[in-house]
């Protein structure tokens, strides 16, 4: 696809993204409406068959599949995600209220993960088999082996329970951000570290790195100028992918652990209350985020790649 001009590329990407979003809505719809009986689920426990049937008709659930989906999709496009069963407000509003907290958490974590992981990755990649390299590598594998929510719990035990330095949960002050963001940053940063480390190592082994050394340049110049230019693309795309992972679900487990008032927390509450409209809206909104981030990463990759290949 790289041979397309920028506008065509953007168009193609947009089309792909919309297709995926559409697929998500289809999957959600199928799951939500066809398997299981929403009317029965939405009615109070002691409702009679008639009342449930009445509700079913009201919701239009006795129409054909295609008709139902068409009207469902139609309302989605209009921004109508239905009414939250739990809060009696538009589901979309509920979700959008929870969104900023999630975005704050994930972006802060991403910055630290990206910077920390990249910096350590470059240093480790430039000094293979050194003490720093071995230690950092082992720690990163360990970080990627533990459940992220467990890491969050561990942080709580150490810093909130034992040392009493930080609040255990909620979003009361900026200090509340430290632990959840750290938990995310450690794990996602570990993956950034691994990829940057191997990319750096690969570049250091290439002839131009040897030539740079033969010029008498100090290591900081070689790493900072020569190597960095060649690994920048890897770094940025890796960071982008980690954001996709975060918004794809990883951040939400952390939100639950820390009772962080974001979309993940919202989803779990909605799930326990069987509030399907909110659940649907949350999945679709998060999905949109993931798809947009994917698109940005692809775009970044392509523009940087093109510049590299400028001819």
């Amino acid at each position, binding site marked *: 696809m790289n041979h397309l001009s920028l506008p065509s590329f953007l168009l193609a990407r947009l089309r792909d993204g919309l297709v995926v979003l559409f697929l998500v809505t289809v999957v959600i719809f199928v799951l939500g409406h066809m398997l299981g009986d929403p009317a029965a689920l939405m009615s109070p426990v002691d409702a009679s068959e008639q009342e449930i049937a009445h509700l079913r008709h009201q919701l239009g659930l006795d129409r054909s599949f295609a008709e139902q989906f068409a009207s469902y999709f139609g309302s989605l496009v209009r921004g109508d995600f239905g009414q939250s069963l739990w809060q009696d407000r538009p589901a979309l509003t509920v979700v959008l209220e929870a969104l900023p907290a999630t975005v704050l958490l994930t972006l802060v974590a991403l910055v630290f993960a990206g910077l920390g992981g990249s910096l350590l990755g470059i240093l480790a990649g*430039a*000094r*293979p*088999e050194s003490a720093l390299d071995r230690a950092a590598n082992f720690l990163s594998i360990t970080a990627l082996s533990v459940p992220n929510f467990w890491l969050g719990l561990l942080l709580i035990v150490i810093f909130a329970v034992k040392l009493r330095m930080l609040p255990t949960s909620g979003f009361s002050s900026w200090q509340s951000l430290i632990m959840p963001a750290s938990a995310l940053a450690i794990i996602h940063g570990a993956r950034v570290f691994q990829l940057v480390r191997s990319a750096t*190592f690969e570049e*250091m*082994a*290439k*002839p*131009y790195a*040897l*030539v*740079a*050394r*033969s*010029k*008498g*340049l*100090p290591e900081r*110049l070689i790493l900072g*100028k*020569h190597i960095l*230019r*060649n690994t920048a693309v890897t770094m940025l795309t890796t960071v982008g992918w980690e954001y996709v992972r975060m918004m794809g679900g990883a951040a939400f487990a952390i939100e639950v652990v820390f009772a962080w008032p974001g979309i993940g927390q919202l989803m779990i509450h909605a799930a326990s209350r069987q509030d399907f409209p909110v659940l649907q809206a949350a999945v679709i909104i998060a999905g949109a985020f993931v798809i947009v981030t994917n698109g940005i990463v692809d775009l970044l990759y392509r523009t940087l790649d093109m510049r*590299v*290949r*400028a*001819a």
Partner: protein
Amino acid sequence: MSSPLLEIKNLCTQFHTANGILRAVDGVSFVLHDRAAIGVVGESGSGKSVTALSLLRLFGPLDKVSISGEILFDGVDLLKLSEAELRHVRGRQIAVVFQDPLTSLNPVMPVGEQIAETLRFHRGLKKPAARARAQALMELVGLAEPARRYDDLPEQFSGGMRQRIMIAIAIACEPKLLIADEPTTALDVTVQSQVLMLLNRLRQELGMALIMISHDLGVIAATCDFAQVMYGGRVVERGHIQDILTRPNHPYTAALLRLVPRIDGPVNRRFAPIPGQPAPIFGAARGCRFSARCEFADQRCHTDDPPAHDFGNHHVSACWLAQERFAATATIE
């Protein structure tokens, strides 16, 4: 006679590998004077490149190397310098031109900048001054339109032009010694001679000494005063280029020369490849390194290291049978 620019005494470079200790350079000594040029000839694995790289300790990040001996450059033993001190020698006093200009240049950095950065680092030039000087260098090495092409990327140049850029980078700080490691091997034949002529011209204009490493005797003959033949990490013969070409005094040298096709030779002459393969030396070795493949080898050659026979006029050869051969003054057929 003034003191030599470069004096290498009994250089031994060993790599510690999973398969044992590889003795890439096993006791090499030679001398190079100011503005002189010596060519180092040999097959791959002979240790010719490692000898040169040992001067500046340019090894890979994972290589475990031990070097012994002395490398006196302008009176200073390079092997005793710290990494930081050595960095002041690299690029400034001794520079290297590598084999493959495509991979030797940073693919995502403008070529002009790659030239300028040595100037900025070693000479402390500011950006505009460095840029101007770099463009002057580009012109010096024969690149057209330096101002316009300063910001171009390496892939926008041909192989020959890229090598010229490499040369510009190397001579930027006017080093006293230039090491060229197979500079023309990756180039088209037609471009090769242009690059060699460029090197000769620059050597003259800048007064540099040259170590030319190549497996190609023709390249050496075109650029050097002296030639040194290496095999198995050791020097087997050394002398003026004329002596080496016309009166080689080592079976290996003679064999190498026989491999050179001659336009005035008989049409149906068969090439005589040297039997066997050069083997890397692990661990201790005895006797002449070439004895396994030498047609003249006798018992002594396999067990005892041959001494270096001096035939006058700087012509030395490390072979037990050198004396007898010299007497017979063998020439190429």
